[in-house]
């Protein structure tokens, strides 16, 4: 069972500015904005906690760094660590290495902001997967005066998990995923509220579609420092968990 922990780890993408969301910080659906060119963003201790129906607790620590390596392009590396605590067993360990890139195709005008992202999850660590998984994603952001709307669609390449002994279900690395998030900004407070809904097809063989809903917030605490938190629920599927996220990001620039 534990070999699948890496597939449970929700992908995250650093974003220090409270206004621009990223996957996992706090919600799964993100906007089409990369880290600014020459920016370095450190997510040192973002935490996600999941509580499933069978009383299993899963903790994920997801340190990562993102760098604006080119204009409109970020590169990110993350090393997720998982703690799975179930009735009969528990384990802690690295659950893979994530390498991802996001490239914004344009700046939003009357045309929505569009971006493409790609991610590799390498089978590294005691709780890592047994194979490499690759994900490609399309992102669109439309900003209106009342709200900001993001649409994501992604597909993952890699072997289907067929281990029938696995009882965790609800894999966050899905065969595909599509969803929408809506942000409401309070600019004078540097505060953002978000809600999302997305549907995903788990990568495990024989699993059913899973619908998810969540809500979160981001706030700018200091020019370099943003804090985020969120709560969500997997509404359908085999593993209907509640989850809570809490994280912060710190920004610096490239030193040269």
């Amino acid at each position, binding site marked *: 069972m534990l070999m699948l922990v890496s597939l449970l780890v929700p992908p995250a993408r650093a974003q220090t500015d409270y206004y621009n969301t990223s996957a996992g910080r706090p919600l799964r659906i993100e906007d089409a904005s990369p880290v600014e060119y020459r920016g370095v963003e450190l997510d040192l201790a973002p935490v996600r906690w999941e509580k499933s129906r069978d009383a299993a607790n899963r903790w994920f620590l997801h340190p990562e760094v993102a760098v604006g390596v080119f204009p409109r392009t970020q590169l990110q590396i993350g090393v997720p660590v998982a703690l799975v605590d179930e009735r009969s067993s528990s384990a802690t360990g690295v659950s893979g290495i994530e390498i991802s890139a996001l490239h914004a195709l344009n700046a939003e005008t009357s045309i*929505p902001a569009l971006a493409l992202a790609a991610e590799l999850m390498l089978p590294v660590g005691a709780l890592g997967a047994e194979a490499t998984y690759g994900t490609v994603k399309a992102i669109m952001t439309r900003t209106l005066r009342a709200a900001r709307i993001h649409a994501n669609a992604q597909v993952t390449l890699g072997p289907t998990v067929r281990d029938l002994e696995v009882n965790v279900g609800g894999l966050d690395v899905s065969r595909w995923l599509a969803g929408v998030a809506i942000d409401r900004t309070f*600019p004078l407070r540097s505060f953002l509220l978000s809600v999302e809904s997305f549907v995903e097809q788990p990568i495990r063989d024989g699993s059913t579609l899973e619908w998810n809903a969540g809500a979160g917030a981001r706030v700018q605490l200091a020019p370099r420092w943003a804090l985020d938190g969120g709560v969500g629920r997997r509404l359908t599927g085999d593993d209907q968990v509640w989850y809570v996220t809490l994280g912060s990001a710190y920004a610096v620039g490239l030193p040269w």
Partner: protein
Amino acid sequence: MVTLMSLRRQLTALMALGALHVASSPADAQWSTTHEQFYRQASHNWQFRRNYPAADRLFNAFDYGHAILYETLLTAPAAPVSRLEQQEYDFITGRLLVKPPRVPLEESAIEVEYAKLVPEAKQMFDWAHLLHRQVYDVWADERLTPTEKDAEVQRLLRYYRSRRDVAFSSKPKDMDLMEGQPYSLAFRRRYPKFNGLIWAYHWLQVGLYEPLVTAQTREARQAGVTEAVARFRAMLEQPPSRMPKVMPMTAAIAPEFSRRYPEVAIIFDNLHSMHDVISDVLADTTVPRSRKRAEILVAARRYRDDTTSVMTVAEWQSMAVSMGIGQMGGPSVGARQPAGQPAASATPNAGVDHTSHAGHTMPAQPPLWSAELVEQRLRDAGIAARPLPPTGPHIFMSIPARSYELAEGDELQLFLYPDSAARGADTRKLDIDRVAPPNMMIKWRAQPSMIIDGNLAVIVITNDEARRQRVRDALVPLGGR
């Protein structure tokens, strides 16, 4: 297989949603690839925030003022003047500047539509504002020696210029870019108080450099910054009487800073000038919404290149002096000149033309024009004249004009003096046929002509000769009826 079909349906729906939105957007939609860039990483980052928190937080509030201005002008062109002149002004001065935000604001969340209209121009401002803040940081960092500060400012300048796509030119630009365009002055004429607020912002933004650069000790720098902030706040009292009457120029407000870093000072003047230009483009109702992006991009290119409307550094310095520091809000440090008071060179030379009364044995009071009389004459002649909001000083007359909008956007500018001598002191300096001082090139939006009588001077700006003649007929000399 089922999952792939589901995925395809999802993606198709997503693309259709996007395509539908694009198709419903204005036809001038543009593909923009402008991008953000992080400020230069250095040990002095955020030192100004650390050492001068009160002043630093004011800049966060300034972000809101600029953003809400552009958003309002763009999205509510038919809104009453009071929307900006009262509601927003009162909110900004009564609440926001009293308790400014603790962090720099995300302007995209305030100027939503403007940011989408011209993200390229927004990036120009953001990039220049970063330079502003980083130069403050350098001079607020007490660990650096003056020599090290000079070197660091030069590094910042090189970093700034590395973004040729968004960097303002460091060549000074003449006033033609700001005041000689068809849309020029549209904003300040309609919104004199908010314009004064923006100029007060710009005054402080450049004025703060002077105490940082000239003071010799940490305590003196603190005192100088505190004094500059106090002068800024005083400008907001009794608006717009104490606000800058002309755009504050760095060479006048921060002369030592400008001498030390002329290229940086010029960049800031070009930045502030383009702020005004965009306000004019957005405020000018003769520029339709569909053309605003194009007009702004043209202006932005002119402010970035090193060739358009360039003048010499000496001319730039001379212009700053001749416009009068008093008109710009006064110096930020040192002896205080009352804000808003005209410079000596601009003071009306009243009481000179006594010869016009020669031969009068009895000093009878000659009849005088009044605004009411002028308006009555125009009404009697069937000429529609809608009063326009008051503006600041005229570009070449010594007193402000009362402006009226005539039909088809034509304009009448009325100048009423205490007596004919005062009027004569002004009009004698003009080339009446050109309606301009002999050595000044002015681009009028339409053909100007001047009517002079006693204490009255009127400039009629129209290409309709019949209308011009009707105004002349209406304003026949007082002794002529």
